[in-house]
């Protein structure tokens, strides 16, 4: 309770300083508009198609996350279970691992143009990069004695072991990879927008170019809210899957 009160007090102090700074002339409102002006800025953005942009970016994000996480977890699983595949992919992974996710934006534009699929591609690459090694490590870390136990009790078939031992045993590590991927995905959405691909990021970049600081803040807060929403969903799933640890 005391902690919650302190947290609220801290938030209130930040808002007060933020509101006061432009009003007292410490900074120009064109650089940092006061929070009291944001509702109006938000209304203008809404009238200008904010919701469509949210829908578009969220759809591209979810598609990219689904593809990237799905393929990453599948490949991570396969690599963890096949030393031959691990050896085969170790070379390409060493070469590709240092490439920052945002460096794939120009590649996405080159292959797909300034279109939604380019955003999906960049998001998927970033999410894949976070999920594949996490899933691989998590599966490799599952206690092999549990796998042997499953075999001793007639559950040692490939699919049975994967579904009943490896997947639940690796769930915590896979979830960590998914969370990192969710953050990477939003980074990719912003990066793709700044490069000019239509969506929330592009609108934010256009607002900055037009020195519309309040609109920049509206899109910044939008990204914060979307990231917070996806992260909160992740926490819900994590809590549900890890009930046995409490």
């Amino acid at each position, binding site marked *: 309770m005391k902690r919650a009160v302190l947290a609220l007090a801290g938030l209130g102090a930040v808002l007060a300083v933020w509101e006061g700074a432009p009003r007292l002339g410490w900074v120009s409102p064109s650089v940092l508009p006061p929070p009291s002006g944001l509702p109006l800025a938000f209304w203008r953005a809404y009238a200008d198609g904010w919701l469509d942009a949210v829908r578009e970016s969220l759809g591209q994000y979810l598609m990219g996350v689904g593809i990237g996480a799905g393929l990453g977890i599948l490949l991570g699983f396969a690599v963890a279970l096949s030393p031959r595949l691990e050896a085969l992919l170790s070379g390409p992974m060493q070469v590709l691992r240092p490439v920052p996710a945002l460096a794939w934006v120009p590649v996405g534009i080159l292959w797909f143009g300034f279109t939604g699929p380019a955003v999906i591609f960049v998001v998927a690459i970033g999410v894949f990069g976070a999920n594949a090694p996490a899933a691989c490590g998590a599966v490799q870390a599952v206690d092999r004695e549990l796998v042997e136990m499953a075999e001793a009790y007639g559950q040692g078939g490939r699919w049975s072991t994967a579904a009943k031992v490896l997947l639940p045993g690796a769930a915590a590590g896979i979830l960590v990879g998914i969370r990192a991927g969710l953050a990477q995905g939003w980074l990719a959405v912003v990066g793709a927008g700044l490069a000019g691909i239509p969506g929330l990021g592009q609108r934010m970049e256009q607002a900055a170019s037009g020195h519309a600081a309040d609109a920049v803040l509206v899109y910044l807060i939008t990204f914060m809210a979307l990231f917070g929403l996806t992260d909160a969903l992740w926490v819900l799933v994590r809590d549900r899957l890890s009930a046995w*640890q409490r």
Partner: protein
Amino acid sequence: MATLVDIRNLTIAYGSAPPVLADFSVTLAERSLTCIVGRSGVGKTSLLRVIAGLAPPRSGAVVMAGADGPVAAADAVHGCRPLALVFQQPRLLPWRRVIDNVMFGLEGVLGHDDRLRRAQSVLTQVGLADHAGRWPHQLSRGQCQRVNLARALAVRPRVMLLDEPFSALDTVTRQGLQADVLRLWRETGTAVLLVTQDIEEAVLLAERVLVLGGRPARVIRNFPVTLPYPRQRESHRFATQVKTLRDTLAELVADGEGI
């Protein structure tokens, strides 16, 4: 008693290394209780893994009576396995509740209701009926070992293989579980093959004790325990049998058998 398992000339080795256990032959009768004793690393756990089919022997065979006949077919239909291994560490799936861990070996064999009934019944047998809904981490070490035992009992094995299941337990818990194993052995009629390093435990439980020793290990003594059940640790006859077995082992060490 009729022979249930015929273990013939088993030789166990890791890769191309020299065998750890050679030419091991023994038969297990129905409703028998046999203990294997031997020093750490002699190959006791490897032997149980091979008997349980978790690892191949370099040579030899484990033959179950009626393995291919109608008995085996009936076993499979009724959710029974010929063998069940009780591990040294409980190896419970931490993300499954106790009841789901006990039902594990019945999945894909019995329907959910039958699995549930069977699991509840064996949890009652091991004294954990009230713990069915708990997570493994909420149990004591002794309770986890009881769940390990219940999971094996749930598949109604004809032979139960126990790999030093009490070695990590405190004395009181260990003695409670030893009494449980004896009771369950008599109630269920399953044959039991128990590996232990504890001479007193072997004399308390077994009808006969096989002593493994030498390099590669082999059976160097077949020691029948002639005491009637229930055995009293405090009795003079019990102490005499323990001493006789200890002396036998000491003689073997002195003779260079490398127990």
